[in-house]
C-alpha cells in the first residue's frame, strides 16, 4: 500500500513474537475475507443438491436469473446515478461552503461553522418521518432526486474540506488576488486543485456510503424500476426465496463495482484521515 512509507521499520523482533503476529493476522484475514469468498462460491454454484454445502461445479445461471427474474438492470443504473450524483454534489457543495469558513473573515463565521457541524449530531434515523413528509410535499416521492437531495452535502464533508483549505499557505491565494481574480475564480483554480487529495478522499467516502445505503431509499422509492441496488436486494430477499443462489449472485453484482473502485483508489485512504474523522 502507498502509505507503507509512513510506518517506520520496526526494530528486530524475536521469532516468537513475529509468529504471534502472523497467526493473529491470518485469523483476522480469514474473518474479514472468508465470508465474502463463501458468498462468491455459492453464487457460482449450480442449482440442485443441498443448499449452502460445498460441492463442485460452476455456472453463470444464477447471474442470469438475478438479471432476468430479479430485474437488476435498472437498479444498477439507478445506483450508479445516485452514487455519482451524491459524491459529486457533496464534494462541490462542501468545498463551496468550506472556502469562506476557512479563508474569509466575516461576522458570524464561527457561529455558522458550529451550527453546520452541529447537524452531524442529528441522526438520519431519528428524522426519517419529517424528511419523508418534506419529500412528499415537494412532489419528489418515488424519484431518484429524493434519494440524492437530503444527502447532497454532509457536515463531515465541510469539516474535511475546511481542514484542507486551512493548510494552504496565504501567499498562494494572495498572488492570485493580485492578478485580479475574484473569489469564485480563486476557489476554482487555486484552492480546489491544491486540495485534490482531500476532495478525492471525500468523494470516496461518499461513494462508499451512497452505494451501501438502504434505509432512506427504502422509504422514498416505490416503483421497482426506481429501486437502488440495496432496495432491490431487500425486495429480492422475499421475491427470490425459492432461488436463493440468484439472490447471492445479485449480492456479488453489487459488491464488485465498489471493490474495483476501492482497489483503484485505496491510496486516498490514509490513516491520518481517520484520525480527523473521529475528531469531526
Amino acid at each position, binding site marked *: *500500500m502507498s*502509505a*507503507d512509507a*509512513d*510506518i517506520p521499520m*520496526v*526494530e528486530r523482533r524475536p521469532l516468537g*513474537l*513475529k509468529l504471534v503476529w502472523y497467526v*493473529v*493476522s491470518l485469523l*483476522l484475514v480469514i*474473518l*474479514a475475507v472468508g*465470508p465474502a469468498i*463463501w458468498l462468491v462460491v*455459492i453464487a457460482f454454484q449450480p442449482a440442485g443438491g443441498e*443448499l449452502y454445502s460445498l460441492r463442485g461445479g460452476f455456472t453463470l445461471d444464477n447471474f442470469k436469473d438475478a438479471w432476468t427474474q430479479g430485474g437488476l438492470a435498472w437498479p444498477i443504473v439507478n445506483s450508479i446515478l445516485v452514487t455519482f450524483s451524491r459524491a459529486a454534489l457533496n464534494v462541490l*457543495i462542501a468545498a*463551496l*461552503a468550506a472556502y*469562506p*469558513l476557512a479563508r*474569509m473573515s466575516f461576522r458570524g463565521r464561527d457561529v455558522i461553522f458550529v*451550527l*453546520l457541524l452541529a*447537524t452531524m*449530531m*442529528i*441522526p438520519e*434515523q*431519528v*428524522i*426519517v*418521518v*419529517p424528511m419523508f*413528509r*418534506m419529500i412528499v410535499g415537494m412532489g419528489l416521492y418515488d424519484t431518484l432526486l429524493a434519494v440524492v437531495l*437530503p444527502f*447532497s*452535502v454532509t457536515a463531515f464533508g465541510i469539516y474535511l474540506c475546511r481542514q484542507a483549505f486551512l493548510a494552504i499557505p496565504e501567499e498562494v491565494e494572495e498572488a492570485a488576488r493580485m492578478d485580479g481574480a475574484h*473569489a469564485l475564480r480563486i*476557489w476554482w483554480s487555486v484552492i480546489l486543485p491544491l486540495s485534490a487529495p482531500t476532495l478525492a478522499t471525500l468523494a470516496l467516502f461518499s461513494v462508499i456510503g451512497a452505494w*451501501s445505503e*438502504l*434505509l432512506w431509499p427504502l*422509504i422514498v422509492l416505490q416503483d421497482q424500476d426506481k429501486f437502488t441496488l*440495496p432496495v432491490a436486494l*431487500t425486495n429480492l*430477499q422475499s421475491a427470490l426465496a425459492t432461488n436463493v443462489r440468484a439472490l447471492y449472485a445479485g*449480492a456479488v453484482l453489487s*459488491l464488485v463495482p465498489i471493490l474495483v473502485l476501492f482497489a483503484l483508489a485505496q491510496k486516498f*485512504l490514509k490513516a*491520518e484521515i*481517520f*484520525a480527523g*474523522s*473521529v*475528531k*469531526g
Partner: protein
Amino acid sequence: MTPLLFLAPAALVLGTFFAGALAQVVALSFTRYTAFRGPEWVGLENYRRLLVSERFWQCLLNSALYLLVTPVIIVLSLLAAMAVEAKLRGMSWLRLALFLPVVTPTIVAALMWRLLYSEESGLLNTALQSVGLGPINWLSERPWTLISAAIVTLWKGFGFFMMVFLAALLSVPRELKEAASLDGASRAQVFWNVTFPSIRPAIALVFVISSISALKVFEELFVTIKGAGIAHQTVVPLVYQVAFEEGNYGMASAIGITLFVIILGFSLVQLRLSARGERA
C-alpha cells in the same frame, strides 16, 4: 455578501433536511398523525403510550444489549491495528484485506452472513455439528438473533476503527518506546506504560462513536434476521416498522425523539473528548 453565497447551498440543504426536520419531528411527536389523517395535537399521549408499550421496551432493551458490540470491536480493531503496524514481511496487503468489510455494502454483508447462519445447512451449524455441538438457531431464537446481527456489525466496522487506531499508534513518539526498552522494560511493559496511555484518547473516542452507531443500527437487523419478528429488533427498525409499515407517524416520531435524547448524551461526551483532543 460573497461568503454567504458560498455558504447558501450547504446551509439550505442542512438547514431544511436536518435542522428543519429535527424541529418537525419534535412537534410531530406530540401529535396523532397517521397515513390516513393529518397531524392533530395530542400532547404527551404518544409518550404515555410508549411507557406501557411492551415492544418498545423490548426494542430499547435490545438496543442496550447491542451496545456490547463496542468493547468487542475495540479489542478486535486495536488488535488489527497492531498487526498492521507490526509490518511483517510479505504482509503489505494486510491492511487492504482487513478494510474489505468496510467498503462492502451493509446489505451484502448481511446477506453473506445470513448464508453462514442458515439453520438447516449453513456453514456454521454444519461445522458445529461436526464437532458434536449445536445446531444454533442463529436466525430465530433470542439472544442468538441479536448476536448474529452484532457479528455483522463487528465484521463491517472493525476495519474502520483499525484505521483510527493505526493513526493513533503511528503518532506515539518512537523515542518514548525506545527509551523505555533501553531502560529494560519488557514489550508488555512498553505497551501498558507507553503505548496504551498515548492511545487512550483514541480508545475513548472510538468507544463513543461505536456506541452511537450501535444505537443507530438498522440494516444488520432488518436484513440478517428478517422474519424473526419485532421482539428481536432494536429501536431504529421499530421506528421504520411503526412509521412505514403501520403508518403511525406520530408514534414513530416519539420513538425517534426518545432515541435522539439517548444518542445526544453520547454525542455530548464525544464533543467533550474531541475538544480535549484538540487542546492536547
